């Protein structure tokens, strides 16, 4: 039986996909001839940008090589543009004169780049960005020339710009509109994109009206309407594409902007189909690959005599293929009264996400900086899914869908079986569930050892637990990890571990990477994260004062009436007449109503107005006093007795040691407050045995105590050990506090931490392991060099001045009648 003759004009991605679809189902049904105007095989045109930037080679982007055509018995004419279609004879004629008959013809002539007929547009050096020839021309220019101007700040233009820049050229992008990619991005995302381009050294000029391209015999410059002249060795025009309809038009097929096709991709001649960028379907032309593939599938199936559903037109989405810039856009993102939107921004990380909703359905999405949920949003949009149930959380991605805050297993139950749970090891839900049921696993550790899920970074531990709960039901006993707060399922220890493992160095980074459920945390987690970061990355992490409780933000204690109390440091509880006079003067000058001696051997000035704080501190600083950190989750006081200086029972210089400890310890941030004391003899007048860290001096040296408390709970200290010298006492003290700083959960006092990890464990590390003790001590001293700055002096000098000044004062005004 004679096989039917199928002829295809064009060898781009769309006809390539037609052939794949057809051959998979009917490998031998047709005699196939392909005419390719380019002298190449079929390649992935959308990957031209990585070729331009040097990240890929041409060989990497070939879809069908020569062998493929051969093995399928396809006759490929390369470098053979078709010049004529004869519908009467059902034949096509190529430039070479070859005439080929067809039973069915597919036109896939693609599109041509639009060249604006500016003066000078035909000068050598003016290029378009369409195929590998263009890329080769650009690469050649980049080797010898310096300046490139790209006209057009759309998808192609920006990819060209990034590629040329990567090849070492100075690139300027001229864009007519106020923001880049305005057809795919809203102004906010367009702005972020412009910023990213500028940051990588590409000059972007928006609202740029090009007047002319100038040069003597070849491009030398581009002139704008406002007279600006930009030097240019090459000019790349990337302002758009136009369907290539010449052949179709000449043979009398119905055309408009593109070749008109119906839902089965037939042109006005039933023996001719068209596919790709050259077609117009329901008044739409497409320039992106996804719609072309959808069209190709319809034709392929039809030719295989397994007709598929009609082509219904496509909802398109866009990704910019510039390394380091993540951008996704789909659908309609204009504003209109009947539309709603959900916006997520993270200014620090340059992340912007916006979903546009209409009648509880997504009609558009713009993602910038973090596009991993783009495919999911796009699917919801294409499926016209009613999102009212998931609306509250969907901006955070599919992981949270159905994730009622109290029922996280719902989200996991809703995930498809092939959903990836462990990103590090690529373990999907079904693998884990099968392991649980098939091997009788009952704990996260079991799952870790059998599947590797959650064994690497651990951020999916919560998901694995939920899978266990889901699969085993009541049989599963979770290791009840108390979440840090309602913003996360992770406990304090996991958060700390992940901060180190993933090297998270800002609060937004933590929230992003550990998938916080709120966009900026809450009053519980923010101070905790701020502490964990400052303790983990001394000298690197920049303290976030907005994530501190008011007392630590303004370095004074808020009182019930909104005034503050101020406690200057008195080292070891020692003071002088001059200090006392200065305190008295301050109390008088600022009409401070209450002056009180504290339990920590110092003086508290209560009832200071917030606006007065910097002036009060200035006067105290002038008398040599600094902040007593009476407000801090940090070292408060080191209480002492008078020791051998005065006391007839004193065994050591307890006052002197107390002062040394306080000078070493002050300024250190800790999970909770830390109070210390040094008593000169076992009579213990400084009450060192109910402190976080205490020293009892004895004849033979110093008995070190820790983990006491005299607050809501009263607890005597545990003895750490006895040491012989002050230096040792200092080292053991610093090391113990550092261990607490590294292991303690935020707002966990030393005694609770010691109880949790075990007093013996602490002793093992501090007393029995000198190397570890020394390392801890060194880490403590290292972090102290960044911590020992008097916060009062900083604020007297003007830091955070806005915090202490009302923004406006209308209290002297009255309401008009």
């Amino acid at each position, binding site marked *: 039986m004679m096989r039917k003759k199928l002829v295809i004009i064009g060898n781009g991605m769309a006809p390539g996909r037609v052939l794949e679809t057809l051959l998979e189902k009917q490998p031998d049904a047709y005699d196939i001839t392909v005419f390719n105007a380019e002298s190449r095989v079929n390649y992935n045109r959308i990957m031209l940008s990585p070729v331009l930037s040097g990240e890929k080679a041409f060989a990497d982007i070939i879809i069908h090589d020569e062998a493929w055509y051969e093995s399928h018995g396809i006759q490929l004419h390369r470098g053979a543009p078709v010049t004529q279609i004869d519908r009467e004879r059902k034949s096509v004629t190529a430039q070479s004169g070859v005439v080929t008959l067809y039973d069915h013809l597919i036109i896939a002539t693609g599109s041509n780049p639009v060249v604006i007929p500016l003066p000078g547009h035909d000068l050598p050096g003016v290029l378009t960005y369409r195929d590998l020839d263009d890329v080769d021309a650009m690469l050649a220019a980049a080797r010898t020339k310096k300046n490139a101007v790209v006209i057009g700040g759309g998808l192609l233009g920006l990819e060209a710009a990034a590629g040329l820049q990567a090849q070492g050229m100075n690139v300027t992008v001229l864009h007519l509109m106020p923001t880049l990619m305005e057809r795919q991005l809203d102004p906010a995302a367009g702005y972020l994109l412009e910023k990213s381009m500028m940051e990588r050294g590409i000059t972007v000029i928006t609202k740029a009206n090009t007047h002319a391209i100038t040069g003597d015999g070849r491009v030398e410059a581009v002139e704008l309407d406002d007279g600006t002249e930009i030097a240019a060795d090459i000019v790349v025009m990337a302002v758009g594409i136009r369907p290539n309809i010449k052949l179709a038009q000449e043979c009398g097929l119905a055309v408009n902007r593109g070749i008109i096709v119906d839902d089965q991709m037939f042109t006005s001649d039933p023996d001719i189909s068209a596919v790709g960028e050259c077609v117009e379907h329901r008044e739409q032309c497409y320039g992106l690959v996804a719609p072309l593939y959808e069209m190709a599938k319809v034709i392929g199936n039809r030719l295989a005599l397994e007709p598929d559903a009609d082509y219904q037109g496509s909802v398109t989405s866009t990704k910019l293929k510039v390394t380091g810039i993540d951008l996704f856009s789909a659908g309609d993102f204009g504003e209109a009264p009947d539309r709603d939107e959900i916006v997520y921004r993270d200014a620090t990380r340059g992340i912007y996400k916006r979903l546009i909703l209409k009648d509880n359905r997504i009609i558009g999405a713009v993602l910038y900086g973090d596009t991993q949920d783009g495919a999911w949003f796009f699917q919801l949009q294409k499926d016209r899914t009613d999102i009212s149930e998931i609306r509250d959380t969907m901006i955070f991605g599919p992981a949270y869908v159905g994730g009622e805050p109290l029922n996280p297993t719902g989200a996991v139950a809703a995930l498809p079986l092939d959903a990836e749970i462990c990103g590090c090891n690529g373990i999907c839900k079904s693998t884990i569930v099968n392991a649980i049921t098939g091997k009788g696993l009952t704990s996260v550790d079991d799952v870790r050892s059998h599947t590797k899920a959650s064994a690497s970074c651990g951020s999916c531990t919560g998901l694995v637990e939920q899978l266990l709960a889901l699969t085993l039901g009541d049989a599963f006993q979770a290791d009840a990890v108390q979440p840090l707060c309602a913003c996360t399922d992770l406990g304090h220890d996991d958060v700390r571990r992940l901060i180190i493992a993933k090297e998270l160095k800002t609060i937004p980074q933590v929230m992003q990477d550990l998938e916080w459920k709120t966009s900026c945390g809450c009053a519980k987690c923010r101070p905790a994260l701020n502490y964990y970061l400052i303790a983990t990355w001394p000298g690197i992490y920049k303290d976030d004062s907005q994530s501190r409780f008011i007392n630590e933000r303004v370095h004074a204690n808020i009182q019930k009436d909104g005034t503050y109390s101020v406690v200057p440091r008195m080292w070891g509880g020692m003071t002088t007449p001059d200090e006392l006079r200065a305190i008295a003067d301050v109390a008088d000058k600022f009409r401070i109503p209450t002056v009180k001696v504290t339990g920590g051997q110092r003086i508290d000035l209560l009832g200071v107005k917030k606006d007065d704080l910097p002036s009060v501190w200035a006067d105290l600083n002038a008398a040599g006093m600094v902040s007593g950190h009476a407000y801090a989750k940090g070292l408060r006081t080191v209480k002492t007795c008078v020791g051998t200086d005065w006391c007839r029972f004193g065994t050591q210089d307890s006052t002197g040691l107390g002062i040394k400890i306080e000078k070493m310890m002050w300024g250190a941030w800790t999970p909770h407050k830390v109070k210390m004391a040094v008593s000169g003899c076992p009579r213990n007048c400084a009450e060192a045995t109910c402190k976080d860290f205490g020293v009892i001096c004895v004849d033979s040296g110093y008995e070190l105590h820790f983990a006491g408390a005299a607050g809501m709970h009263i607890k005597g200290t545990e003895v750490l050990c006895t040491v012989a010298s002050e230096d040792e006492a200092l080292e053991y003290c610093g090391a113990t506090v550092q261990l607490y700083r590294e292991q303690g959960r935020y707002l966990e006092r030393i005694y609770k931490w010691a109880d949790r990890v075990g007093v013996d464990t602490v002793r093992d590390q501090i007393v029995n392991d000198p190397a570890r003790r020394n390392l801890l001590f060194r880490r403590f001293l290292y972090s102290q060099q960044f911590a020992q700055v008097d916060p009062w002096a900083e604020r007297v000098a003007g830091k955070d001045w806005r915090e202490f000044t009302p923004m406006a004062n209308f209290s002297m005004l009255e*309401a008009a009648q």
Partner: protein
Amino acid sequence: MNTQTEKWIVVGHLNDIARRGSRCIKGPRFNIALFRTADDQIYAIEDKCPHKQGPLSQGIVHDGAVTCPLHNWVINLRTGQVVGEDEGQVRTLPVKLENGLILLNMGISLVRAA
């Protein structure tokens, strides 16, 4: 003579308030707390917690809410409603941004006291 002024009053610039921060305005009748959220929304509410009159301007700002510094009540900045188990309502004031300037409407025209 009293000087009549507009009900919308420029009280400062967006940049006068830190992101996730707050500033206080001393008003003729009560103090007002102005908030700037992480996404640059501006809210104005009375600077007084319905629980024990804590100064809300001193709290931690998270999403569209503030946590009172005294006893951790959480107030929705847009509605003034107390969030969660507790109940209560804080007075909200209309506020708007124009070219970066913050305009506050205290519902009254102000005159200079005689």
